[in-house]
């Protein structure tokens, strides 16, 4: 219907249809709050309003079926529809084709939907959460370099656990770039800069502000991290999907710093109790040893050493017996030799005759050395085994030495040695007994004269007796 004839009189219906026709191409999006909602079987009426105006709306059954949620008064709504006129009543309205929750409401619904979905996947399960290190050496912090969050974490962390090294990666925490910034930082720490624990922090904000922390991408990046992640986002009661995915969720940046580090105050008391228990252990151990020592000292083994050393002592005694007999027989042999030598010596001049006494004295000293050894054997059971052989050797060496000395003295006193000083031994021809008296040797008798080197065979021309 067109408006050509300015003088024509229209019916009411015609006017309404005319208006409707003028509006029918206007398919638009509009956002506002739901009010005055009335439901009927095939359609619903409601109004969309904001601070300045009200827009009546109708929604038919087909559009209602496509809407996943139930409309409520006060709900923030984003609707698309065609403007038109309700002919019968001449009422201006928006015929709504589709409706979405707008603003916080929409975000909250989206949040719930994603939470259910990711939760079904097991991303928020307690079982997949990694344990935080008790004593982190290096701590990574992902947050905005400006603002209170970074300050809260730095101050609390350095105060609680001064030993740790804190490395901060600055990111945007709000707006469209925040998600990719934060994910890149998580991956960077995992890939190229090893830390023991990661803190993801941000100050509080509206659901819209926290939107990056409620994205599926960030949730997956947190679970992908091989480094445990602690979140400290906003203040209670805000909770984000990142919080649910984190290995530990603190409600504030300060809380995250506290969760990531041990408290030095607690550590001091832990160290103190460790120290006390070390001391107690040592004291107990010393007492234990002292008690053991006491009870051991009372045991027979210590009052009667032979109990412990019985077998070795028996063996030692056996060895000693055979050594003793060896020494005795050796002494006996030497004694016999001495006897033989002294009986031979008895045939020599008087000054040689005390030699046997000297030899006997040497033999006596040898004997006393042996008995000293026997005394020593009684005194030092523990050392005997090691020292005995050496002692016996030295005793034998001493007696050997004395024997050698005697032998060399004998050698010096031998008549044969005297010959070298110009003396001679004279015997009757063919005899060995030296002549000591000229009496009895007649003129013309033959005598042998034994010199130091060589012999003379002589005829006696005269003697004292002849005169």
């Amino acid at each position: 219907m067109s408006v050509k004839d300015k003088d024509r009189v229209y019916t009411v219906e015609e006017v309404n249809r005319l208006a409707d026709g003028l509006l029918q191409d206007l398919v638009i999006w509009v956002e506002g709050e739901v009010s005055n909602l009335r439901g009927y079987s095939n359609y619903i009426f409601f109004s969309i309003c904001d601070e300045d105006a009200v827009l009546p709306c109708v929604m038919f059954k087909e559009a209602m079926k496509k809407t996943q949620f139930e409309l409520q008064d006060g709900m923030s709504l984003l609707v698309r529809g065609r403007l038109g006129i309700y002919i019968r009543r001449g009422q201006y309205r928006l015929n709504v084709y589709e409706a979405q929750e707008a603003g916080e409401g929409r975000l909250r619904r989206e949040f719930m939907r994603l939470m259910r979905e990711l939760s079904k996947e097991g991303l928020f399960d307690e079982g997949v959460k990694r344990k935080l290190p008790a004593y982190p050496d290096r701590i990574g912090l992902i947050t905005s370099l400006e603002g209170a969050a970074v300050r809260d974490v730095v101050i609390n962390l350095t105060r609680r656990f001064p030993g740790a090294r804190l490395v901060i990666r600055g990111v945007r925490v709000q707006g469209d770039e925040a998600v990719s910034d934060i994910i890149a930082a998580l991956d960077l720490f995992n890939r190229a800069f090893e830390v023991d624990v990661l803190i993801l922090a941000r100050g509080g904000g509206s659901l819209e502000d926290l939107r990056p922390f409620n994205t599926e991408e960030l949730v997956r990046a947190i679970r992908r991290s091989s480094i445990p992640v602690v979140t400290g986002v906003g203040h209670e009661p805000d909770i984000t999907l990142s919080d649910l995915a984190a290995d530990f969720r603190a409600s504030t940046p300060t809380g995250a710093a506290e969760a990531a580090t041990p408290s030095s105050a607690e550590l001091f008391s832990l160290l103190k109790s460790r120290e006390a228990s070390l001391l107690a252990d040592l004291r107990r151990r010393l007492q234990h040893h002292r008690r053991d020592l006491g009870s051991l000292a009372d045991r027979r083994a210590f009052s009667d050493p032979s109990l412990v050393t019985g077998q070795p002592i028996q063996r030692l005694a056996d060895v000693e017996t055979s050594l003793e007999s060896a020494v005795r027989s050796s002494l006996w042999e030497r004694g016999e030799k001495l006897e033989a030598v002294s009986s031979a010596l008895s045939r020599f001049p008087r000054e040689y005759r005390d030699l046997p006494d000297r030899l006997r004295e040497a033999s006596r000293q040898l004997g006393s050395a042996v008995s000293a050894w026997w005394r020593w054997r009684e005194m030092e059971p523990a050392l005997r085994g090691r020292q005995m052989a050496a002692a016996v050797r030295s005793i034998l060496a001493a007696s050997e030495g004395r024997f050698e000395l005697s032998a060399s003295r004998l050698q010096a006193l031998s008549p044969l040695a005297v010959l070298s000083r110009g003396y001679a031994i004279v015997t009757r021809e063919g005899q060995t007994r030296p002549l000591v008296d000229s009496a009895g040797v007649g003129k013309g008798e033959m005598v042998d004269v034994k010199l130091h080197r060589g012999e003379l065979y002589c005829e006696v021309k005269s003697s004292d007796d002849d005169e």
Partner: protein
Amino acid sequence: MKKMTFKQIMERLEEITATLEKEDLELEEGLRIFEEGVGLIREARQRLTSAGSRVEKLIGSLEESLETEEFELESQESEDDKA
């Protein structure tokens, strides 16, 4: 020897306590590890009281260009305190 981390110190202390609690230990060995334990406790205390933790910011984005530089706080109010 490389400097022990705090974690390593605490773990070694744990070990020492456990060892000392065992009965079959030579007295000399007991004394030796007791001394080690006391030394570790002293070291841990020192670290907790030493002023100045390192706070740095990580700059660069590729592995090769990554570096850290000292980070200093600007003075401002904590939001936690205001909340």
